[in-house]
């Protein structure tokens, strides 16, 4: 079998592309097959890509403060499309202003995201968490 597929992109009308490129490089280096949808990605595009690639995880970035609006409903749509087991990670400047990460995390957890990261998350730590989560889902790495 090949590598584990990751679907990656920046959601909504957000065109911040630097962090997105860093994530693509980082996770490719780590041995994943990264399908980077780039910037301004709709929820449907994330889901469609995850279906075609059979990716066990979607990584959603949002930098421009509208994350809450853009990210709501993704989990429900995944369930509708038969992706009930998919991991959803979200990270970036998810809300406007200086809200403590715990509050942001609890908000996005309620929306169905498995992991929530701030703008200064350590990518090595994210990868370690991802490996644990994938193992739990039955993927051998």
């Amino acid at each position, binding site marked *: 079998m090949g590598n584990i597929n990751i679907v990656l992109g920046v959601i909504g009308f957000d065109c911040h592309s630097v962090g997105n490129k860093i994530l693509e490089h980082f996770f490719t280096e780590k041995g994943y097959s990264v399908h980077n949808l780039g910037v301004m990605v709709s929820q449907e*595009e994330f889901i469609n890509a995850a*279906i*075609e690639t059979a990716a066990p995880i979607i990584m959603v970035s949002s930098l421009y403060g509208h994350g809450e609006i853009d990210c709501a409903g993704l989990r429900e749509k995944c369930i509708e499309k038969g992706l009930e087991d998919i991991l959803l990670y979200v990270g970036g400047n998810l809300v406007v202003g200086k809200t403590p990460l715990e509050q942001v995390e609890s908000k996005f957890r309620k929306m169905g995201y498995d992991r929530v990261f701030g703008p200064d998350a350590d990518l090595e730590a994210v990868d370690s968490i991802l490996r644990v989560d994938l193992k739990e889902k039955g993927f051998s790495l």
Partner: protein
Amino acid sequence: MKDRVISLDTGSTWTKGALWSLDGGKPELKSYFRTPTTTANLADGALSVASHLCSVSREDYIKNHTGIPVFWTSSAKGGLAIAVVGLVPDLSVELGRLAAWGSGGRITKVWPWVLTNQHMDEIIASKPDIILLTGGTDGGHEKNVIHNARIIGESTYDASVIYAGNSYIASEVEKLLETKRCTVVPNLMPDLGTINEVPCQLAIRQEFLDNIVEGRGLLQLVDVFGRKPLPTPSAMLNLVTTINEKCPDFGDFTLIDMGGATTDVYSICPAQSDDSVILRGITEPLIKRSVEGDLGMRVSARSLWEVIVKSMKSATGLPSLEQLKEWTEHVLENTELLPVTHTEGDLDRILAVSALWHSVARHSGRIEQVWTSNGKVGVQRGKDLRKIAKVVLTGGWLARFSNKNFWSQAREIFGCFENDKEILIPEKPDVFTDAEYLWPLFAPLVGEIPMVEQAALKALIKR
């Protein structure tokens, strides 16, 4: 003796042929002949054309082959009928459609996601020659693709299947389809959103050559001509591709081939012409072909009329819609009819302008302007034809088309926006017509004799 060759095209309304001399290196037209296609037995009309071009009787032509090579094409059975079964409509299914069109096919049915037996019955009822099964990137989705293969495998469908999906499960799919004629080719979408259409197109073309030329006298023609035909649209695609490769000075162009039943559009340009917009969805190929089955001058006149009525934004330059409606019903009854009076000419011209505009508009992508925190950004889907400087018109009607201002006229009637999205149609193209209607006869010669592409460009007249 290859100082003279014949090219011939059969299957559409007219069976046409040309005799070419090759003295000067490139093909020079010596004579041209056409006759209405004999649909019951294509050999009848085709052999009349060939014998006429050689100035011998039909019997003599069949008995003593003249030695002049015949390169020929056929759009028999109204083109190659293909049903597409894939996974996600915007991804593998869309690429399946592009590949089917790009190999000269006509699409009979499209199913995404998961096939049921009922869907399968509908596919069989649409009578495809080929089912193109796609879905999943390499190492990607397996479950639904395997399910779809099983449904096809267990059905009563008895034509061929081409599998161009996730290559990791190719052997499993092949096994499920072992009772069918199944060809496995590399994945159409090995990676997300990228298209690898060539192997799939070659397989479709091979399928045409091996199994589809059997009916309606085509085998007799293979016997007499000593050569198998190419599907007509596939030969046209060869011509377009060769022009793109060997005549770079001609630049990007769009070719529109309009007939009584369908309008085919070919575009030769990169998917994106403006780097500042963001391209979403799949990146469409440099050479794209699309087929509009409801836009045509005769057989499809009624559906064309409906499209006109629904989409017109202004009635400037239009005759009364009642009159147009009457004319479409009239030509539908008499598909070989040509306009006689001035008014009929005008009515026919409006039909042609409308079919042209809509076929190119559907072929083209769209740009939507959205507001972001960084200002206004254009988001593009599909192919951007705006910068294309040349439009080439061929087909019986368009060959005679001399209306210089039709593009701006169509722009006025139909407008360049659809639900606030800009239609990425050529902005100000120069219009060239294949005035002697020779492109379908240049097409079979591509790859067989030199400099066909130069001769084809020389045959164009700038309007």
